[in-house]
């Protein structure tokens, strides 16, 4: 049994101009100790699907799923009160902007101790001790004095460390990191990614890394799923994905990276990600795909076998064998 099992997750938002489907039939499974990455451009539904899991979406969102279970517990069936016992304790999340996710009115020490008090019921002295331990673990120098500082007194990298310390405070079994390094500089990014991988190794937790940066995926993840316009279009082990991408979108995305360029002109993907009003009838990538034909434009493809990276494409076999080129 995997740690987290999501089948056919769909999230729709009620907007003034009708229903908008942000996540469309996404599957995700994460095992204990596994480092899974979800990669996609903005609007691909990668953050929304994880926020749905955490129960952090506003009331305008309708969440449906065939299965949404964590350690065998069906999260859609349990009450909000029971859910809160799991969320924040066994499943924790790190957000993209550390500066805006921490409360500016309280010291970071107060904020980290709050989680310890509510979920673990530790007394004051133990909380203080544990908070120092956690700050030390995430590499914050002089942890004891740092507990009394406010978020605005620290740099972005330090604040992100505080966020991570808060997330791992209750030794979660699953940690979701939503673009944890996007707001940070590369030298700090390297420190934070190393820290996340080290904590995963030490505590054996599952780690879901949400990112748009293919470089970060290549260097840290073990398994990757690619999302496009709310759908999962491909899933492979990281080495296979970069060596033999199956879905035309993944291929095009990798080719568009400047570091893979062979000439001054980069290969591009024409057009933009479809929005609420121009959602194609068939395959969502068909308006931008070089292989698309009438079948693609009329009939949405279903995921292929694992051998072909579960690619959501009608022609993945033909593209692989080179029949279509």
């Amino acid at each position, binding site marked *: 049994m995997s740690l987290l099992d999501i089948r056919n997750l769909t999230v729709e938002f009620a907007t003034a101009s009708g229903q908008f489907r942000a996540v469309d039939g996404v599957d995700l499974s994460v095992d204990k100790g596994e480092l899974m990455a979800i990669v996609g451009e903005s609007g691909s539904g990668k953050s929304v699907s994880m926020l749905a899991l955490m129960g952090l979406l506003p009331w305008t969102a309708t969440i449906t799923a065939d299965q949404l279970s964590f350690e065998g517990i069906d999260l859609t069936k349990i009450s909000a009160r029971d859910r809160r016992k799991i969320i924040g304790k066994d499943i924790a999340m790190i957000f993209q902007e550390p500066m805006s996710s921490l409360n500016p009115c309280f010291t970071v020490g107060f904020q980290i101790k709050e989680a310890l008090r509510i979920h673990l019921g530790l007394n004051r002295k133990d909380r203080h001790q544990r908070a120092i331990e956690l700050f030390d673990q995430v590499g914050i120098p002089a942890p004891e004095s740092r507990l009394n500082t406010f978020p605005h007194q620290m740099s972005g990298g330090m604040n992100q460390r505080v966020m991570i310390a808060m997330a791992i405070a209750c030794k979660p079994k699953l940690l979701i990191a939503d673009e944890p390094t996007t707001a940070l500089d*590369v030298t700090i990014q390297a420190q934070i990614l190393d820290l996340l991988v080290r904590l995963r190794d030490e505590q054996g937790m599952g780690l879901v890394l949400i990112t748009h940066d293919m470089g970060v995926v290549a260097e840290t993840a073990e398994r990757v799923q690619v999302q496009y316009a709310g759908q999962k279009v491909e899933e492979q082990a990281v080495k296979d994905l970069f060596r033999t991408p199956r879905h035309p979108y993944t291929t095009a995305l990798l080719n568009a990276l400047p570091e893979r360029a062979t000439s001054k002109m980069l290969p591009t993907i024409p057009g933009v990600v479809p929005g609420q009003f121009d959602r194609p009838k068939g395959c969502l990538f068909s308006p931008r795909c070089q292989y698309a034909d009438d079948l693609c434009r009329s009939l949405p493809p279903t995921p292929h076998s694992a051998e072909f990276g579960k690619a959501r494409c009608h022609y993945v076999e033909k593209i692989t064998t080179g029949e279509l080129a």
Partner: protein
Amino acid sequence: MTAPIVQASELARFYTVKGGVLSKAATVKALSGVDFELRPGKTLAIVGESGCGKSTLARVVTMIEEPTSGSLTIDGVEISPSKWALMRETVQIVFQDPYGSLNPRQRIGQILQEPLIINRREMSAADREARAREMIDLVGLRPEHYDRYSHMFSGGQRQRIAIARALMLNPKVLVLDEPVSALDVSIQSQILNLLVELQERLNLAYLFISHDLSVVKHFADDVIVMYLGRAVEKAPKEKLFAAPRHPYSKALLSTTPRADPDARKDRIKLEGELPSPMNIPKGCAFAQRCWLATEECRAAPPELSGSDHKVACLHPLW
């Protein structure tokens, strides 16, 4: 070699932070003594982490802010704030965030015509419109976009509009302040290609500010690496990426993630963070994070020296 269009020497910009009741006024040295030249048809990239002064440099070169000291010569004319009209004709800027840099109350046509209304008062309305429509075509937008508002466009299209606006006065130099970092990968490549095309067609000189080394490696001709307001290394792109000489450049290159899982991961992990620009160390600014630093480094800041591949370090890597 063609003559440089922009020559900057010892450009510096300091800010004074007013003290309160208990604190003294402090000086933030955002940019201290940077030299460079820009040539037509060439791209000079400025790279560095946040707080290294790269955006301040962009603002000084466009005279959005006056330099505290140093000189800036554009097209053979020494620039001072009173010569702003000339500046606008030759130097234009494209900002990072296309959502913030376009007026939401103006139609695209108006946005594009505004530089002409201000700087070419003799131009007739019909000529202005013709010029704006021509520019829409040049940056790859469709004619019907002329009457739309900016909220109707995606990020990539807005960046095209921002580029079009910058080109309305036929400038010779374009300052690009992180022009693609707010965009998705698939859109980023479209904008980079557009910039390459425009450079070839109009023989523009680019000052390309970026923190993304893979984009710089693809796009630039020469690169300056900055750290805390100073240039620490300056070299042609090929030389810098093949063999950096400054320890900071090497660390920066090694920590940039590469989209290749088989690549060797010999990252140089830098300890700590950038010192505060209010309190720059006396010697080399990088000394406290550098693994080669000695007492000498902490005594006085090293000068940028060398012929083709310049470095400001007492213990360069080669």
